[in-house]
């Protein structure tokens, strides 16, 4: 940690503890959490999203930090902004697309600046391991005038997080800490230090700073631009940006995980300009480096962010001409792109591995609703993001669109407008999970009522944020810190926005007949209709306990091999050599397959 300080005087400012030698292996996310803890962070807020989720999960283990799951990323960032203005050190974390949701406060808090240090963590996902796009959030930093830090391993995740709080306070500006999936989810060694209690700063009302009316915003903009010049100077001198001289024939400018890949490929055969602070960028340092080497490669994932800047300085360099913009990098891709060297070749076989896409789990409550919807072949279903996105997987094959969180209800509104205008007979449905409904579905439902849309909104309430690994949410009755919370009642919200009583159904999706009836009613309705499909996630510990030892089994004597039970796409039901079987290790007795069977051949076992 100490190595990142410019001079001895900064020790006090940055409040570093003495370096300790205790080394443990941590993921990048665990290390960010540890960094926040050591930096004396007071408040942390986030909305879950892979690959960022474990940051707050780990922070919640440090009881010194008041942590929360916010309903969405905008709320999380605003909570952090408020905590910072009030004098505390605050952190907000989110996945890359979450920063789009939080972009509104982000741009303005950059004008207002901070009181306690404010760190915004964005976890980008090159390669789309679990995301709907692979946007490069480094571009937010120049757009919003933020400090941008890019750690390349877990030790740097911790160090940079700590430093971010201090730099934020020193320069009166929020810091954007940019991670990527490979940094978040890779483990490497980290040296632990003690927590340093950063006292909460006094709050002093300051209208010229914290009230961004147009008159004040104009003045703050000038302050921010001046500040950028100071930051540029800091970037020139900070050890965050460093040259590692090696062979001078090849010079590599790189940041984040790409630095590790570059070292793997080129080792001592190149010199490196390792960028840890990627905004503002150190122009003098880049020029010095360029003068010291013969040929320059810029190695970075996704957008040519560094490359464009280097070129803008009039320096000739090579990057995205051969390194792909799309997808995640690895040493093999870099070798092929820059050294025209084929990677190693492994073994091959003539056998073909069948695909193994993720599917709705055995017993997933979403299945009953999707099976029912799959019977309405002429309906259009606007989908959303969560486990229930897997309703698109055959044999269910339900869902026509997925855009972003909340866009099910709203895209359905637009689709229904066109259908109505064109006289199409299409019935438009939308499916949204409970967490997603709280995140950004409620405003869509208000629009349904206000602008008289007659779509059907199906809220798939499994009482948890399942997709990202079971995080609590406003409807689950518990907070991130483990406290009992008031349950925000979805049904009451639906009533309150004005959906008529006769157009609301609450059904148990494990009851296929009741589910069918509700969908039928909705299909025939001429007004906005809401179905709340209510059944907790089958993987919840409480549910697993309740149904432990229970399963269904096929009575082979009664089974007519009609395969009706296979239509629900349950991974526990298989047809091996013409014999229908239910895998009892997966089955948790949701009973759907038994309801499908017309011959009473599927029965409950283990009562």
């Amino acid at each position: 940690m100490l190595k990142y300080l410019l001079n001895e005087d900064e020790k006090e400012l940055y409040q570093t503890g003495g370096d300790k030698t205790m080394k443990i292996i941590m993921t990048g996310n665990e290390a960010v959490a540890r960094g926040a803890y050591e930096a004396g962070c007071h408040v942390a807020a986030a909305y879950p999203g892979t690959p960022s989720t474990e940051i707050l999960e780990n922070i919640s283990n440090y009881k010194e930090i008041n942590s929360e799951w916010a309903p969405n990323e905008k709320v999380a960032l605003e909570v952090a902004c408020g905590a910072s203005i009030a004098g505390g050190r605050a952190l907000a974390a989110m996945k890359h697309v979450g920063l789009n949701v939080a972009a509104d406060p982000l741009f303005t808090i950059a004008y207002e600046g901070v009181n306690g240090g404010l760190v915004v963590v964005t976890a980008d996902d090159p390669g789309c391991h679990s995301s709907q796009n692979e946007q490069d959030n480094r571009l937010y930093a120049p757009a919003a005038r933020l400090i941008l830090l890019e750690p390349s391993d877990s030790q740097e995740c911790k160090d940079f997080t700590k430093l971010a709080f201090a730099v934020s306070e020193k320069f009166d500006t929020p810091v954007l800490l940019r991670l990527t999936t490979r940094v978040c989810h890779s483990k490497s060694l980290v040296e632990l230090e003690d927590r340093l209690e950063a006292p909460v700063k006094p709050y002093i009302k300051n209208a010229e700073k914290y009230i961004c009316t147009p008159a004040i915003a104009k003045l703050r903009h000038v302050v921010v631009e001046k500040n950028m010049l100071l930051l540029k100077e800091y970037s020139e001198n900070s050890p965050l940006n460093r040259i590692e001289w090696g062979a001078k024939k090849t010079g590599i400018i790189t940041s984040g995980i790409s630095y590790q890949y570059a070292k793997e490929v080129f080792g001592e055969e190149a010199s490196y300009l390792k960028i840890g602070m990627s905004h503002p960028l150190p122009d003098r340092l880049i020029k010095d480096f360029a003068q010291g080497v013969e040929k320059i490669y810029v190695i970075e994932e996704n957008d040519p962010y560094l490359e464009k800047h280097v070129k803008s300085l009039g320096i000739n360099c090579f990057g995205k001409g051969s390194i792909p913009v799309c997808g995640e990098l690895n040493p093999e891709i870099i070798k092929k792109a820059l050294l025209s060297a084929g990677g190693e070749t492994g073994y091959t076989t003539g056998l073909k591995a069948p695909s193994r896409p993720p599917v709705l789990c055995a017993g997933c409550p979403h299945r009953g609703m999707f099976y029912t919807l799959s019977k309405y072949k002429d309906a259009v279903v606007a989908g959303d993001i969560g486990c229930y996105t897997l309703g698109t997987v055959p044999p269910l094959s339900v869902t026509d669109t997925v855009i972003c969180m909340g866009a099910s209800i709203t895209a359905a509104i637009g689709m229904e407008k066109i259908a109505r205008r064109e006289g199409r007979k299409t019935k438009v449905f939308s499916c949204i999970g409970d967490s997603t409904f709280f995140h950004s579905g409620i405003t869509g439902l208000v629009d349904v009522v206000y602008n008289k849309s007659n779509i059907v909104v199906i809220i798939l309430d499994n009482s948890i944020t399942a997709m990202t690994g079971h995080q609590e949410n406003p409807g689950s009755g518990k907070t991130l810190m483990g406290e009992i919370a008031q349950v925000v009642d979805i049904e009451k919200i639906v009533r309150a926005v004005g959906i008529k009583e006769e157009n609301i159904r609450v059904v148990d999706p494990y009851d296929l007949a009741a589910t069918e009836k509700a969908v039928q009613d909705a299909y025939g309705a001429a007004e906005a209709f809401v179905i709340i499909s209510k059944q907790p996630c089958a993987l919840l510990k409480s549910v697993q306990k309740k149904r432990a030892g229970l399963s269904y089994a096929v009575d082979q004597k009664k089974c007519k091999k009609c395969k009706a039970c296979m239509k629900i796409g349950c991974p526990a039901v298989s047809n091996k050599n013409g014999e229908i079987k239910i895998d009892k290790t997966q089955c948790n007795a949701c009973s759907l397959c038994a309801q499908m069977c017309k011959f009473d051949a599927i029965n409950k076992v283990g009562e």
Partner: protein
Amino acid sequence: MIKNVLLVGVGGQGTILTSKILSSGLVKLGYDVKMSEIHGMAQRGGSVTTQIRYGDKVYSPSICTGEADLVAAFEKVEAVRWLPQLKKGGTLIINDYEIYSLPVLIGKENYPDGILEDLQDRIKEVKVVDAAGIAERIGNIKTQNIVLLGALVKALGLEKLEWTELIKENVPAKLQGINLKAFQAGLGC
């Protein structure tokens, strides 16, 4: 010298716990270690991989084509899927266990026959482990992953470390005994 170990399996099989214990052990042995696990949809029965690299100094956390000294496949078809990662002359540990994916279950795709024979023909160092059978005999099929941990430790020649404590730290108290048995059984494979 850097060693590359790739663990592949199906969401829910416990590959992540195995790699967690293995990498903690490697740290105790004094290696620089990087481990990379991409999970997101893992819980939903998708194919999962964990990469572990260890040596004096490790930069990249990712293992590339043909670079894995050891591939441990927790499920048979996953060995086929990730075979190109195995280095020529490397070792394959393969669990004699099948999990059908949904496209196979609904008859859209085929689960190939003769995987073990095919791979044994091509690769010199193949260790077939009946981890499911062993785990079931011990009394809990879910300890398959610890049986495989034992087999991995042996194949990597890391028996000298005291693994017992590490395993205890990483499994629930009441399952410690059975997991230690599973580990011993794996070591004996």
